[in-house]
């Protein structure tokens, strides 16, 4: 086994989220609500990666995510890989897919939008890969995926 892989302990059951851009690690933690997690969470920050140069990794014991939860990562880290581990074996790989609707994730950049002025959740529609934009359900403002800011934090 390579030395790098030994930096984080192997998992018996749970989820490994790999290839997280290090600059996005804390946003990923926030989006998956790992602050409140009670089982063991191992976080590798700024690990060397052949593919990415520098990456981060999260291992969460005894935790499995629904597709909807995984897809919350789409605006922040669309290229992460999720491996579902059971009894030390990878039994499933999950990809992040952009959901048609994002609720409470993205902040609207229109300061005159109702969502920035009421205690309420934002709601965005994904307008397709080709267009590469999200549209606010309330004020109809379109935001490029590259310019997205998160609603919280």
């Amino acid at each position: 086994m390579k030395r790098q892989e030994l930096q984080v302990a192997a998992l018996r059951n749970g989820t490994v989220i790999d290839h997280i851009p290090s600059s996005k690690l804390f946003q990923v933690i926030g989006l998956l609500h790992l602050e409140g997690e009670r089982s063991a969470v191992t976080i590798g920050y700024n690990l060397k990666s052949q593919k990415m140069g520098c990456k981060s990794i999260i291992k969460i014991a005894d935790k499995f995510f629904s597709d909807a939860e995984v897809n919350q990562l789409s605006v922040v880290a669309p290229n992460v890989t999720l491996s579902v581990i059971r009894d030390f074996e990878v039994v499933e790989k999950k990809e992040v897919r952009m959901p048609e609707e994002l609720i409470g994730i993205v902040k609207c950049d229109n300061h005159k939008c109702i969502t920035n002025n009421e205690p309420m959740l934002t709601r965005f529609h994904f307008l397709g890969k080709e267009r590469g934009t999200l549209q606010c359900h309330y004020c109809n403002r379109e935001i490029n995926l590259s310019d997205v800011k998160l609603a919280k934090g």
Partner: protein
Amino acid sequence: MENRSLVTIAHHSRQKIEYLIRMAQEFEKRPNRSLLCGRVVATLFFEPSTRTRLSFETAANRLGARVIGFADPKVTSGTKGETLKDTIMMVSNYADIIVMRHYLEGAAQYASEVSPVPVVNAGDGANQHPSQTMLDLYTIYQTQGTLENLNIYLVGDLKYGRTVHSLLTAMRHFSPTFHFIAPDELAMPEHYKMYCRENGIRYVEHQDFDADTIAGADILYMTRVQRERFTDLDEYERVKDRYLLSRSMLSKAKPNMKILHPLPRVNEIEYSIDDTPYAYYFQQARNGLYARQAILCDTLGITLDDIINDKTIIS
């Protein structure tokens, strides 16, 4: 209960638009009825708009409804920090329908989601103003006898003009040709031109605004070029008088051509045009009453059949 709120007509089908036009025609013939007798309409104007409010309140009054509400946001609890949701929840205890004007974009959509009674959007910031669009469509139909295959010229502020954007969207069912005449700073935004291309709407952009350019118009839709929209005031000074319509520019106009304007006008339509057969902006404003009567009824679940077979007609 099905949410019958009217937030936008951008998604209305052709059939739905034609249905509302049919309703408005009935109200034009006989506007005074007791169809809404016993109902309470709330008009909540978080931003003043006298014209729109009077039109909605007249529509409600002429149908026998009672009206509650406020015309000035300074008197509401919003100034005390009350949320929009709380105001809507409170008012929905009293009224059967809420007509709301708000300065924030998306406010009407949100209100319609939290409100137990239907909400009619009377304008939410720069976003949507469906009753204006409905009265524009009704006026175009009334003056041309059809909505099909018309040449519609949009003049003035095409960048921020909410009415011209909504009209563009609503006309997509009717195979129009749009003509855009605007200063560079206030030109039709690229995403609306993309919308035209995606929806097979023909459009032509013109540099000049003169008798020859508008000779082909069925509808000449004028808007106001506002000083505060310009970042470069020299540019404003250069263009401000270029988009004024004078009587001499109508020399080649088609006989069926009508001039519309959402009002208020400042100086963009010369006063001497008012008594020509082309001027139609005051009748257009009057149509706001019929369009809003149709909207109130449709939103409250009253059908075209109910209106045609109405036994409550006064005059």
